[in-house]
């Protein structure tokens, strides 16, 4: 390899080096406590719900669109699921029961996945068919869905979801949480999916240059709608996972996670302009965020500091990304075009 290729390689894999450095830092600061099986499990557990949502977000970002609605979907579906499954109870001290139908988890779980998918599809249609701005559409959708969640729950928490329901979020296979296994598998499957399938190719092409994708025979509208459908499905899955872990619903569940998913994707090298980045890259971003959270927890840093540190990390990641793009773009020969070129 030539020198510039090495540099390219290091730039491309920068995030993994940073991860290693961060792990070393926490290990030294905690006197080795950080480097244990328990911590690893905690990090991955922390990364599971965020990870599932980040996969959906990344797929939308690759198509050149934001999905800000996912946390709204989580908010609505967790409340809805608890409401449909729990027995009826008078509201006391902001605690409430369900509507009293006590539906089986085996009905509610498919319902959650279908509803999530459906909402994603509606997002896609609004954006592609009605040509509405993706940022605004999904932001409005987020608010709308959380609003419904408040109305259903009256702001109360609904505790005590059934055991069969909690398997995905709270179950363990030996010492390893089911959600961790499922999340890792999903990252793997989706990495292969976007990398090697026809849909994946379309996704990158549409995100990078929609006009050229269309002129190559792709249908950008369809691809973008499909991206949102996947985003909605993943939000449904994340809702099931999150509610199963907490066993309690509140309409504020998922709040703030949109930003974390976007941040994870960007830290992992996914371009906000679309068409560049990978699912595995996004995973590295998720890992970084959860390692930092877990590490600061173990160090018993004041939780009020953690938010600020996260903000800093995202800024630094973006800074690196911009520098990388600048480094790459400079030596492109033969692209100078004068404004007179057409005359």
């Amino acid at each position, binding site marked *: 390899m030539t020198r510039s290729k090495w540099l390219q390689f290091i730039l491309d894999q920068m995030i993994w080096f940073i991860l290693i450095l961060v792990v070393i830092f926490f290990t030294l600061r905690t006197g080795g406590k950080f480097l244990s099986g328990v911590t690893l499990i905690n990090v991955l557990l922390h990364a599971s719900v965020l990870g599932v949502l980040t996969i959906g977000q990344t797929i939308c970002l690759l198509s050149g669109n934001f999905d800000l609605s996912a946390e709204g979907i989580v908010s609505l579906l967790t409340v809805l699921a608890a409401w449909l499954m729990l027995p009826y109870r008078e509201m006391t001290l902001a605690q409430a029961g369900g509507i009293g139908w006590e539906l089986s988890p085996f009905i509610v779980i498919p319902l959650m996945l279908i509803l999530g998918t459906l909402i994603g599809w509606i997002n896609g249609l609004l954006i592609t068919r009605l040509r509405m701005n993706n940022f605004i559409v999904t932001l409005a959708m987020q608010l709308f869905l959380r609003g419904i969640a408040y109305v259903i729950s009256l702001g109360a928490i609904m505790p005590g979801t059934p055991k069969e329901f909690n398997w995905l979020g709270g179950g363990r296979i030996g010492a390893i949480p089911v959600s961790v296994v499922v999340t890792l598998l999903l990252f793997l499957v989706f990495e292969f999916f976007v990398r*090697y*399938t*026809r*849909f994946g*190719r*379309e996704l*990158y*092409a549409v995100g*990078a*240059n929609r*006009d*050229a*994708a*269309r*002129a*190559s*025979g*792709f*249908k950008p509208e369809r691809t973008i709608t499909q991206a949102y459908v996947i985003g909605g499905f993943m939000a449904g899955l994340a809702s099931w996972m999150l509610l199963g872990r907490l066993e309690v619903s509140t309409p504020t569940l998922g709040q703030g996670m949109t930003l974390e998913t976007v941040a994870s994707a960007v830290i992992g090298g996914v371009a906000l302009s679309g*068409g*560049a980045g990978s699912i595995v890259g996004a995973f590295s971003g998720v890992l970084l965020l959860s390692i930092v959270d877990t590490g600061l927890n173990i160090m018993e840093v004041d939780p009020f500091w953690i938010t600020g540190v996260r903000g800093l990390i995202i800024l630094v990641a973006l800074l690196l990304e911009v520098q990388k793009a600048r480094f790459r773009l400079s030596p*492109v*020969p*033969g*692209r100078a*075009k*004068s*404004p*007179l*070129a*057409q*005359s």
Partner: protein
Amino acid sequence: METGSPKVILEMKGISKTFPGVQALDNVDLTVFEGEIHGLVGKNGAGKSTLMAILMGLHSMDSGELRIDGRLITNVTPRGALEAGIAYVPQQVRMMDSLTVAENILAGNLPVNRLGLVDWNTAFQDAEQRLRQLGLDLDVRQKVEGLGVVEQTMLAIAKALFSKARIIILDEPTAALARAEIERLFGFIRSLKKMGVAFIYISHHLEEVFEICDLVTVLRNGQRIGTYDVSSLDIPSLIRLMVGEELREYERQTSRQDDVVLEVRGLTRRGHYEDVTFRVHKGEVVGLSGLAGSGAAALGRALFGLERRGIGEIWVNGKPFTARDPREALDQGLAYLPQDRYRFGLVGIRPVRENITYTILHQLVNTLRFVSFVKERSLVQKYIEALGIVCASPEQRVNLLSGGNQQKVVFAKLAATRPAVLILHEPTQGIDVRAKLDIYHIVDELASQGIGILIISSEVRELLGVCDRILVMHKGRISAEFKADDPQTTPENILLAIEGGNAHDQKQVASVYP
């Protein structure tokens, strides 16, 4: 010129400029007097753009001298050119559309009152007065986006004058204008000319050059052919000067067969083209040329389903062609190479391999919709070799290739669909000479495989070299047809037809412009 000894305002002497593989300008002179409208004509690639880019400080010159008001200017920068009084008004004027005329005129210098707020009354009065001095009557309170195209152009000229411009370069200012608007613009230009403003007027519409210009400088292949008083010329003689005695740069054998692969009958889209009827045969290369707005470009995009097509019948390979979007067009055997390859041709940040197979992914996937690596690799390798695409590897990002190689990638992805008809829109634009020849060979090769090819191009010489037949569009209609072996098929006659004259009777045209 009315006055006795007009002052020289711009003097460019012995300007030369070489780009990799091309001598863009070779010892070119250009002298412009105060109060003169100086036409600059030449075919595409003659060097007009490069000469103007040097004047504006966008390119450096390899050798030569530039004097403004007799003052030697070395090392022209865009800022230096502006300060020296050079202004460029493009075909499509760019201004702050959502702001008022006054704000655009006074940009950065809006008057403020004692509170530091904009003093609107003074601003509007000031702007109005300034415009009136130039004889321009515009509502200064109106937003620029509400103005017509001609008003925006005039406003851009006025704005240039307010920032002390003395030489204004007009680049195809009339391309989007109706006749009455052109009259208005010309009236405005003439009134400024009386005030001593000099114009360099670039246009392919030679009729207008005769109407508005005093002198005209002709460039051909980077050389100045001469500067002439327009009253001493007519359109045919000007075209002869632009074309010169040129040999065809590319010779080919026709591969035309008898079957018709593309038939268009009575295709009409109001405002774009009318009653267009033509055929392309198997293995035939047909050229289609016309001025901007003649409908040739719109026709190409519409056939591929990128724009609405209007009414009329189209047959591809003997079947009715009903495609409403590019996917359906490709499936029905019609492929299209777009003029703007950065925007429509390529996904720049993706590798060569992916770009080549975009159009045929559905043929490369297995039942799980995974793309077969083996099939893809061998196909990509085949096209890289067949078209001579120079790249570090198939995994290289396509926007890191040279223009010619990028264009070959677009050819590869279209050829991979095995179309019956291939439409090429300005296939050699922005490509160096060697790569152009490669492209001509590729066109030839594809034609010999039986593909019917329609080349939409404004490069007449290129069309003469590669086409069996050339169609000319004028004002939305096909107005002339030239066969390659007809002695009447000369660059002069074709350019005449493009300009709107009757190509088969030069004398008749000449009499219109005595």
